[in-house]
């Protein structure tokens, strides 16, 4: 029995004024005799002990000793007496209670119908009035009296109940206290005469109080209470803004088997789990059987487990001989409260000979609810699965007969020497042979023929059948048994060989596909490979349809619309994609389609559809083929996922890179623009405010400062513009024939202020040809390189520009005599905003070399940096010579003779 623990609701309630509605506690029992009244009185006594003003309004004790003993200590109000149809009845005295206004009143048997002439027709209406008046009520009710459950109880017990209480009223109860009792105890109490139900004869009672009935009622009561608890929990969570669901710790387990019914069971488990907001497990126990499950079984099992995963279950596969034991072990470990298991309905004989897992489970479980769901086998449903059927051609029957004839002749030859028993042995041989070679059917045929032959040729009278031969029918039976056994065994073996061969083929195909796609990182070539591979393996036309940006299916590789993908085919593909199921020809869905469509999906995403037009004429897709295609589809969707994830990673890397550049740009802008501006503004304001105060020399210095600052800003802005132009791809080269010497000359002229105190050496091959480049761009490169060389080497040290060429390219190098740079940084100096972390305070934008690289690359040249042996840095670039230098106008050289 469940007793209410001390609650504090009562005291809080009693402090409130009378206008506040009272609270009702309902003691819910399975049936009469469950101990509701006892529980109620017990609780009331506790309240009384706590000092609460408790009054008994109405309690039936039916003369039960324990109950009456409890009632004795409680103050009771007199009952109201009524006369109806010359009979005296007692009813609850509502007015007396209302006058007395206790804190808590006990009113038993809530479902009672009042005698006509009372204020209300039903007792629950009396209670309602009490509650409305602010009186708290303890009351009792049996599960069968709850209105909506009434029907179910009647169906279970066969006993109709007229007195009911509306659910709505019960829902208003503050608390429902379940008073549970095990069926054995209840039945014992009935036998002991402790249960009294008015108006029921003994026979009816015995019919009612059966363990099955009681258990069913218990479940009903438990469920009713559980639902209410769930509801209370929800209300509480809503009131306290707690985000659910709260783990109740309950788990439901469903046992999965390779049967079509299992899917139904899984769905049922999902519904139950949802209702209970519980987690659920789908469990399959693998037993080491004599024969492995066949292909169809394995397929179904995989499907069932996948269904469970799709519906949100955790799937577990166990291995063991004792299925029930394994299941219960896991249930205990994972705190499973309910186990759902299916059970096929078989004949009584079948039941008698072997116990089902479900029965086993029921017997051995304790504390775990076992729900056995019966299943009537539906043969027509199973027929829908298509197994490769081995059709035995007629020749397979003829050959054993011919073998038979041969052996018979042979036996006839040796019969005189070996005797009848050995001939019989000899005749078994063709049966065995036929069984192994051609299967069960031909073997049985051989057996029949064999026994007839044996009788006809060897049992006297030879060449005749007589009734006396009947005992020899035994040989026929033995022969047939031999044929059946051997045939079945070898059939199984053959089946296994075939299936393992098929598996091998499939593995090989999958392996080669996965090897092909391992290194592919682009989606289109990958899909091409997939389409080609599958096409080769299955001898079919293959189309890969993937989801495009706008969420529509788009043909990415393989067959075209001319081949088979017309609008109706696309609709089939669409269906397959949306439902995540295989569809099209050879399946049960849209089987009129020409192609077969397998969805490409991983756990998170649906990515597309694989469309296959098989060349074979068969209407039905072979299971093996289907599994292979599904494996291909799996592999393909994994591939797509991989590529997509890689793309995402690349993109996010790019975003991070551009983010870094942006930050660098802003740093650079604020630093490189503000520094010269600060010097300019400082110098200008000095001059403006200190008019006539500075000496001519000081003024000149300030003006020089302004000039330098402005020039520096100009360079920086120029760099930024160059960079922007390069990056936007807007740069247009004005390539024309140029003399490298001339470009160097102009660059040096531009830099003459900065090169003032620098020895400059220019080494140019004397016969350096003209090159077709953009003069301005190349000059810019040289200016930047010179600027760089000046910045990173000491004042007074030499700078060298050299230019040389071979028959393919021109190489130009700018060399300084500075410190060089660490080897690891050599590659990075051409990165944007990259600055050496050198102790030298060098003002630079970090753009100069990056621009050089960009400009040189627009010329299809390359640029690199290296440390030279003398310690300085070499920055070199090469430019392809490209087209041949045109012949100079002949007049040039011809003219030399006509000199003035």
């Amino acid at each position, binding site marked *: 029995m469940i007793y209410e623990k001390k609650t504090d609701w009562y005291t809080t309630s009693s402090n409130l004024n009378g206008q506040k509605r009272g609270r009702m506690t309902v003691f819910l029992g399975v049936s009469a005799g469950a101990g509701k009244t006892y529980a109620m009185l017990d609780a009331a006594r506790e309240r009384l002990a706590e000092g609460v003003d408790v009054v008994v309004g109405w309690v039936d004790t039916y003369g039960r000793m324990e109950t009456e003993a409890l009632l004795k200590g409680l103050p009771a109000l007199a009952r109201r007496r009524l006369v109806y149809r010359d009979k005296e009845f007692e009813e609850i005295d509502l007015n007396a209670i209302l006058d007395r206004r206790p804190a808590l009143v006990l009113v038993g048997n809530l479902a009672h119908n009042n005698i006509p002439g009372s204020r209300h027709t039903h007792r629950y209406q009396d209670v309602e009035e009490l509650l409305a008046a602010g009186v708290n009520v303890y009351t009792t009710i049996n599960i069968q009296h709850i209105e909506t459950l009434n029907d179910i109880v009647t169906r279970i017990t066969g006993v109709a109940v007229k007195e009911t209480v509306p659910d709505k009223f019960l829902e208003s109860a503050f608390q429902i206290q379940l008073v549970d009792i095990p069926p054995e105890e209840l039945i014992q109490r009935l036998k002991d005469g402790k249960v009294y139900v008015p108006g029921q004869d003994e026979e009816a009672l015995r019919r009612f109080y059966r363990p099955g009935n009681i258990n069913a009622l218990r479940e009903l009561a438990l469920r009713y209470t559980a639902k209410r608890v769930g509801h209370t929990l929800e209300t509480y969570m809503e009131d306290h803004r707690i985000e659910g669901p709260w783990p109740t710790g309950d788990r439901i387990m469903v046992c999965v088997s390779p049967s079509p019914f299992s899917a139904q069971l899984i769905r049922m488990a999902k519904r139950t789990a949802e209702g209970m907001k519980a987690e659920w497990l789908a469990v399959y126990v693998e037993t080491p059987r004599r024969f492995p499950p066949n292909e169809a079984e394995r397929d179904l099992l995989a499907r069932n487990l996948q269904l469970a995963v799709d519906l949100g279950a955790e799937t577990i596969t166990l291995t063991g001989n004792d299925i029930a034991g394994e299941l219960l072990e896991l249930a205990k470990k994972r705190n499973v409260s309910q186990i759902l298991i299916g059970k096929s309905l078989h004949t009584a004989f079948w039941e008698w000979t072997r116990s089902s897992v479900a029965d086993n489970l029921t017997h051995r479980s304790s504390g775990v609810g076992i729900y056995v769901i019966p299943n009537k086998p539906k043969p027509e449903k199973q027929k829908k699965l298509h197994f490769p059927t081995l059709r035995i051609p007629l020749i397979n029957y003829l050959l054993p007969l011919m073998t038979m004839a041969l052996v018979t002749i042979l036996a006839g030859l040796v019969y005189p020497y070996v005797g009848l028993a050995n001939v019989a042995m000899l005749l078994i041989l063709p049966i065995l042979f036929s069984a192994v070679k051609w299967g069960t059917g031909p073997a049985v045929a051989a057996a029949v023929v064999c026994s007839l032959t044996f009788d006809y040729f060897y049992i006297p009278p030879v060449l005749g059948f007589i009734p006396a031969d009947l005992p020899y029918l035994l040989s026929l039976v033995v022969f047939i048994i031999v044929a059946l056994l051997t045939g079945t065994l070898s059939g199984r073996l053959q089946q296994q060989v075939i299936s393992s061969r098929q598996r091998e083929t499939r593995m090989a195909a999958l392996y080669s596909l996965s090897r092909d796609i391992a290194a592919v990182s682009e989606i289109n070539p990958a899909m091409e490979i997939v389409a080609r591979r599958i096409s080769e393996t299955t001898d079919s036309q293959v189309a890969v349809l993937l989801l495009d940006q706008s969420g529509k299916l788009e043909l990415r590789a393989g067959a075209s619309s001319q081949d088979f993908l017309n609008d109706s085919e696309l609709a089939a593909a669409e269906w397959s994609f949306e439902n995540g199921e295989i569809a099209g020809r050879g399946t049960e869905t849209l089987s009129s389609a020409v192609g077969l469509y397998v969805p490409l999906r991983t756990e998170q995403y649906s990515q597309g559809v694989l469309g296959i037009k098989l060349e074979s004429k068969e209407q039905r897709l072979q299971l093996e083929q289907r599994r292979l295609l599904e494996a291909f589809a799996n592999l393909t969707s994994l591939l797509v996922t991989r590529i997509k994830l890689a793309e995402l990673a690349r993109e996010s890397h790019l975003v991070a890179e551009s983010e870094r550049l942006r930050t660098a740009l802003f740093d650079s802008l604020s630093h490189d623009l503000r520094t010269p501006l600060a010097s300019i503004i400082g110098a200008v304001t000095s001059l403006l405010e200190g008019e006539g105060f500075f000496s001519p020399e000081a003024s000149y210095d300030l003006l020089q400062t302004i000039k330098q600052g402005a020039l520096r800003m100009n360079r920086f802005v120029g760099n930024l513009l160059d960079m922007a132009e390069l990056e936007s791809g807007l740069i247009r080269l*004005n390539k*024309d024939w*140029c003399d490298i010497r*001339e470009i160097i000359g102009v660059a040096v002229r531009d830099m003459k202020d900065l090169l003032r105190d620098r020895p400059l050496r*220019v080494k140019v091959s004397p016969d350096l040809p003209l090159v077709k480049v953009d003069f*301005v761009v190349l000059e810019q490169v040289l200016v930047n390189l010179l600027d760089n060389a000046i910045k990173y080497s000491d004042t007074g040290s030499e700078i060298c520009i050299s230019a040389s060429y071979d028959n393919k390219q021109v190489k130009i190098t700018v060399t300084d005599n500075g410190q060089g740079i660490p080897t690891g940084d050599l590659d990075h100096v051409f990165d944007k905003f990259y600055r050496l972390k050198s102790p030298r305070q060098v003002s630079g934008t970090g753009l100069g070399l990056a621009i050089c690289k960009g400009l040189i690359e627009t010329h299809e040249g390359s640029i690199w940096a290296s440390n030279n042996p003398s310690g300085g840095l070499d920055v070199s670039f090469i430019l392809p010579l490209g087209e041949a230098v045109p012949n100079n106008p002949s007049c040039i050289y011809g003219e030399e003779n006509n000199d*003035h």
Partner: protein
Amino acid sequence: MITKGTRILVIDDEIEIRRLLKVALSGHGFDVKGAATGRDGLDDIIAFKPELVILDLGLPDLNGLEVLKNLREWSGVPVIILSVKGQENDKIFALDAGADDYVTKPFGMGELLARIRAALRHAAGTEDEPVLVFDDLTIDLARRYVTVNSREIRITPTEYELLKILALNAGKVLTHRHLIRAVWKMTYEYDTHSLRVYIGQLRRKIESDPSYPRHIITEPGVGYRLL
């Protein structure tokens, strides 16, 4: 050559540039007027009658090139273009459309003054003297005779033509196209290769250091000028 009060019209939409040029050029004795738009500028050319126009290529209303083409239809006033780096093609267009010279922003005042003087001198058309002198370089047009440091140099007819056209437009930038047309009579209009070769040869003959020429100055991407 330059008389005091020579009128210069500055057409630039930026007030800072107009104010700067007004102050700086007035300081050098020029009479300067500013115009903020191309239309105002064209009106002012009629009203103010400038002897030289400084024209910004990037104007808000009319493109500087349009202003130039418009005024060239009825006026031969020397025009110096103000441009920014990267507008080499615009510069070439402007020069071919009749501009006399260009300066690139930002520019030094000394550079601008030199261009103004050269343009004014050229416009004055005083150079019908038979002998042109550029420091150590002397070109005797009548005798087709070139000396460097008073020593005669051997020079081919094409080189001479090239040098002559540069010398006659001394101080003024001549575009590649202009030079090629003038020297090769359009035969090799697009053959800058020959031009580069002849410039190189000329430099070797007349420059003391051909790597850092003092006479034949390269205007990157545009052309050459002789100083």
